[in-house]
């Protein structure tokens, strides 16, 4: 392959990975933006989403759209319950108590399904929901149907999210709560509802991310969310945590950098992503699109 074809091919691979990071990073960023909590259990909703789709397809025989819908709904509802039981009582407590609770929730979510007989610790193959086809874009560089569906699905979800946040009443309420919870409450906004909704949306995006991830890398297991979640969290911070465009940009760049770094030197491939991250943060301490916190004197 010629040089440019190679580059284009790597770029496609990078974007394929990046859009998934971006979807999961969005959930982190939204929850963080609203209640300043790093939801360590967020990655596990990716796993739950993937398993939901897995069972929906294998047991009910549904297709791509119902599967992804189920995979968004179930984790979303579950996350509202978890928020209600585990995070809400701690909202006025030190921020880090909620963080430790989130770690506990994550340990639980990763280990409980392992003990459920029909899930278990084993890897499972994710069903093929989209027929694999290759389209040549430039010489031998190709893009396949799964990559296209990832990009399209992420794009649609992102557009929906932006519409929801920017142009609906609920979105306005969310932005108000993110800006100042107490003032928003005084304005008659039901803060609890807004927070629940944020968790709902975040987990739904994670569930969708889980489906897309599992379509691309068709293998699922109960621990798949851990490291993926961490990567997405890093992507969110990289882009500027709390910022929706930041999460998208951060996720995409993470994916692309990772793929290119691996192509250049695979022994340190995944470490090099971190090195780039550190350098970016040193020059832009609030991430790529994050706003520097104004210390009002």
């Amino acid at each position, binding site marked *: 392959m010629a040089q440019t074809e190679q580059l284009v091919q790597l770029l496609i691979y990078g974007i394929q990975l990046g859009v998934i990071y971006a979807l999961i990073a969005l959930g982190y960023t939204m929850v963080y933006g609203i209640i300043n909590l790093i939801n360590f259990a967020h990655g596990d909703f990716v796993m739950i989403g993937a398993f939901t789709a897995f069972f929906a397809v294998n047991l009910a025989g549904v297709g791509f759209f119902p599967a992804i819908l189920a995979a968004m709904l179930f984790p979303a509802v579950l996350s509202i319950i978890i928020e209600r039981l585990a995070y809400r009582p701690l909202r006025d407590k030190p921020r880090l108590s909620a963080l430790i609770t989130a770690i506990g929730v994550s340990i639980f979510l990763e280990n409980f399904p*392992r003990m459920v007989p029909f899930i278990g610790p084993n*890897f*499972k193959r994710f069903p093929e929901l989209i027929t694999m086809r290759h389209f040549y874009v430039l010489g031998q560089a190709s893009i396949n149907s799964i990559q296209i569906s990832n990009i399209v699905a992420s794009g649609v979800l992102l557009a929906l999210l932006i519409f929801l946040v920017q142009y609906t009443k609920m979105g306005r309420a969310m932005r108000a709560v993110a800006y100042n919870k107490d003032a928003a409450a005084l304005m008659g906004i039901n803060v609890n509802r807004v927070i629940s909704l944020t968790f709902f949306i975040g987990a739904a995006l994670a569930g969708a991310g889980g489906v897309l991830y599992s379509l691309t890398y068709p293998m699922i297991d109960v621990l798949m969310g*851990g490291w993926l979640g961490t990567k997405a969290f890093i992507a969110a911070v990289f882009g500027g945590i709390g910022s929706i465009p930041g999460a998208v940009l951060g996720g995409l760049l993470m994916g692309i950098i990772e*793929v290119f770094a691996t192509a250049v030197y695979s022994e340190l491939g995944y470490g090099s992503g971190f090195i780039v991250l550190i350098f970016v943060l040193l020059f832009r301490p609030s991430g790529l699109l994050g706003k520097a916190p104004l210390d009002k004197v």
Partner: protein
Amino acid sequence: MRKFLVVVGIIAVFLCSGAFAADEVRIGIVLPISGQAAMYGAYCKTGIELALKELAPDNTITVGGKKLPLTIIYEDNENKPEITANAYRKLIDQDEVTAIIGPESSSTALAGAPIAQSSGIPVVTIFPTNPKVTQVGDYIFRACFIDPFQGAVMAKYAYNDLKVTKAAVLYNNGNDFSKGLTEFFTKTFAELGGKVVITEAYGGSDIRDFNAQFNNIKASDAQVLFMPNTYFESGLQMQQARSAGITLPLIGGDGWDTPDLVTISNGSEEGAAYSCAFSHEATTPQAQKFVQAYRAAYNDVPNSNAVLSYESLSIVYRAIEAAGSLDGAAIRDAIAKTKLELPSGVIEFDSDRNPKKPAVIVMYKGGKTSYVTTVNP
């Protein structure tokens, strides 16, 4: 203060709970029951249970003419070195086991083995392929083959049978097994006159995207691709390699030896060959008996973990009987003298406490493995 006393009381109860009847044989099994390697633990458990059912259906063992009750104690090590050290300590000090079987990987075996060695408790580790494990001391044995042997086996297979001289390697540089096989494959392949033209790595089992690596491998002039990785990593890798347009023959190690690989690779494993200790097509009566019993019990084909665990327990059980006492040194010597007909052949240990057994090379054909050849050490 009252709370404090309660806590102290609870701890005291735990501390004192180690008292056991003396005329009982206890064997400790250390496996990853939770954590990332839990599925291996589950497979190992099937092998242990099957062996137990055959050897001691009434849960007894005859030692020196006396029939003693046998207790199997499972301990979880989460596939972590520190937890393995704790599990070993618990089994040795609190449960006062006679022998230990497991763990399943090199990095955990290396943390546990020194404890058993210094306590004089014989150990048969299940699947640690790093040569250093049994070098810890004379109480430490293993049921599997070591990296240098298996790496060499695959290098010879590639050079002599596939008749290729240029190889590519994709390995997990976070995994000791993968790294070990890569090292010895590269070495032997070069000694034979071939050359590893490209070595690509990835940083751990969490990685699921190998496209960048395959992009480089595709651009190289390799004639065979060696992927000495775990079955789930390789299952994905086979798919991605084929999807990226790589048509090279694929070869691997016994990490591939489980029927689960096919469920993940989904057809892309066709023609891929690997080395392992045991082919379920093997015609020896022991092997056939084992495969049938396994199928009857679990409705599945046994994988390497199950076979090796089955053999580990058999070796230990027979050695305790042969030693005729519960003395650690006597059992150790009995294990060293093992000569047993087991599913993967007649098992004997060499002076480094590694089993002397041949490797078989099998190939995936139509979703099933089929026997290709046997390579002797």
